[in-house]
């Protein structure tokens, strides 16, 4: 069963049609990478899922319940981490989490225990310091704490890693990955390696609809265009190599990529024979797998 389902969703702002009949299905238990360029409509889609904005047409269901604007029936089910979390700077993290917990219907003393545990999980001190002095990374961690506080079945994260430094990004992705099995996660991003690192499901939003969606490995097989990657000492030699190989090949500076089908070893043997016959020697020979980036380029081209 799918925990989140969008059918033929359309949304227009002024004369800009942002979503043109978007279908999106997030299977229960998956980590779903929601990919698209900046401005493709990822944030809009998430706001629609959360009932923060009105649909022009279509239907959204969360855990079997239809989402209606202004009535987040699903608020016990969903946790949301906004792209730029905005808090009340005059509160301490404990006060803010208490506010959030009360709104989602968690009762004391359970709430106080959960807050203490949650602050420990995200490594924030539980003291009198107010949020207005927090760094970007600390705010992000508080964001995770508030999103997970009600133990949601579905966690929605909007561009969670784009503002973090490399270490923060890596830690955050590890945290998301560690939640696998406990909840379903939908996270949007334009950083493709993040998706490849933790997602099992992926959807690519482009031009108002999902161009592809499904299991990441299955997509890679479907879009498989493996290449032999060769590196030469100089661009001139690389250029010479392209001529010698006698097959479709692309050259970027000292690198040459040769797409192939079938067996890798056979292909490498053929290429090397041709090169050596012309006394052109590659420094590196490697197999280049299909990446999400290749799929992304292909479907958004």
């Amino acid at each position, binding site marked *: 069963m799918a925990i989140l389902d969008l059918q033929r969703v359309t949304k227009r702002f002024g004369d800009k049609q942002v979503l043109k009949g978007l279908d999106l299905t997030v299977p229960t238990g998956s980590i779903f990478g929601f990919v698209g360029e900046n401005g493709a409509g990822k944030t809009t889609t998430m706001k629609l899922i*959360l*009932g*923060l*904005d009105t649909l022009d047409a279509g239907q959204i269901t969360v855990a079997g319940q239809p989402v209606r604007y*202004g009535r*987040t029936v699903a*608020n*016990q089910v*969903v946790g*949301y981490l*906004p792209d*730029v*979390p*905005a*808090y*009340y700077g*005059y*509160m301490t993290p404990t*006060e803010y989490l208490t*506010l*959030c917990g*009360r*709104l*989602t*219907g968690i009762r004391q003393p359970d709430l106080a225990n959960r807050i203490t545990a949650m602050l420990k999980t995200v490594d924030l001190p539980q003291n009198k310091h107010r949020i207005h002095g927090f760094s970007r990374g600390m705010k992000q961690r508080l964001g995770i704490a*508030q999103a997970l506080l*009600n133990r949601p079945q579905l966690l929605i994260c909007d561009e969670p890693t784009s503002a973090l430094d490399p270490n923060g990004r890596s830690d955050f992705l590890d945290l998301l990955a560690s939640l696998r099995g406990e909840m379903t996660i939908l996270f949007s991003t334009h950083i493709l390696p993040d998706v490849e690192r933790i997602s099992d499901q992926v959807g690519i939003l482009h031009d108002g609809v999902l161009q592809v969606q499904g299991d990441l490995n299955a997509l890679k097989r479907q879009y498989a265009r493996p290449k032999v990657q060769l590196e030469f000492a100089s661009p001139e030699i690389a250029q010479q190599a392209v001529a010698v190989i006698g097959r479709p090949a692309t050259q970027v500076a000292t690198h040459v990529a040769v797409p192939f089908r079938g067996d890798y070893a056979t292909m490498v043997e053929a290429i090397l024979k041709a090169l050596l016959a012309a006394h052109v020697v590659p420094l590196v020979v490697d197999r280049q797998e299909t990446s999400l980036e290749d799929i992304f380029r292909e479907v958004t081209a």
Partner: protein
Amino acid sequence: MSATLTFWHKEWLAAWRNYHVLILAVVFVIFGIEAPLMAKLMPDLMKLALGDQLSIKLPQPTSSDSWQQFYKNTSQIGIFLLALVFSGAVSQEVSGGTLVNLVTKGLPRYAVIIAKYLVAVVQWVVAIGGSFLITWGYTAYYFPDDKSPHVWLAIWPVLLFGLFFVAVVLLGSTLINSNYAGFLTAALVFAGLALLNYVKAVKRWNPIALVTDNLDLVRGTEKITHILPACGVAVVGALVLLGVTIWAFNRKRL
């Protein structure tokens, strides 16, 4: 209901930590002391300014002078200070995006408006009430005369006007995403009502009477029944404005 209560707590914390409570408390206590002080000092100040060459006898100040100063302060400065303090109540949260998170957690939008309204009104009532009691105490002590027979009657219209005025501020703050929108809306409405007062036919119905006729009420030269229609308009107006604010806020993108 419980969400409104939760948000009411949050609003009080905000009012306290953002120094709104402090500002209102200090200013209104100053008003409370200043009214009898000015009344008491007036003859002496006049003497100092004019020197001894004038031998005309200045009238002794009365309780009425004290109350005149009190209502001048509250209706001309106090009410606008209130508008200024609550000017960004909604607009600041919308432009800062602080409500997004809470609304997705199930905070109904009406609860935001109602809690903000009630917290502002309670602050107004406590501020005016405290200020009034201070002036009342000093005035009774320094000016024990019979010039102000209806002291306890004249304060009620001011409190009622606050109900109306806070609703205007909130509506302005909801409609326009600017920190000063609430204040400007309130100032425009106040100016509009003041102009409307030149039309004789609507004078008794004009809510502005609630903050302009107080001295006459204190002295007993005007009966409270005279401005009852204006009181009614203020209360109904406050409720209608509150309803419109909730309606508008329900349609607002956060």
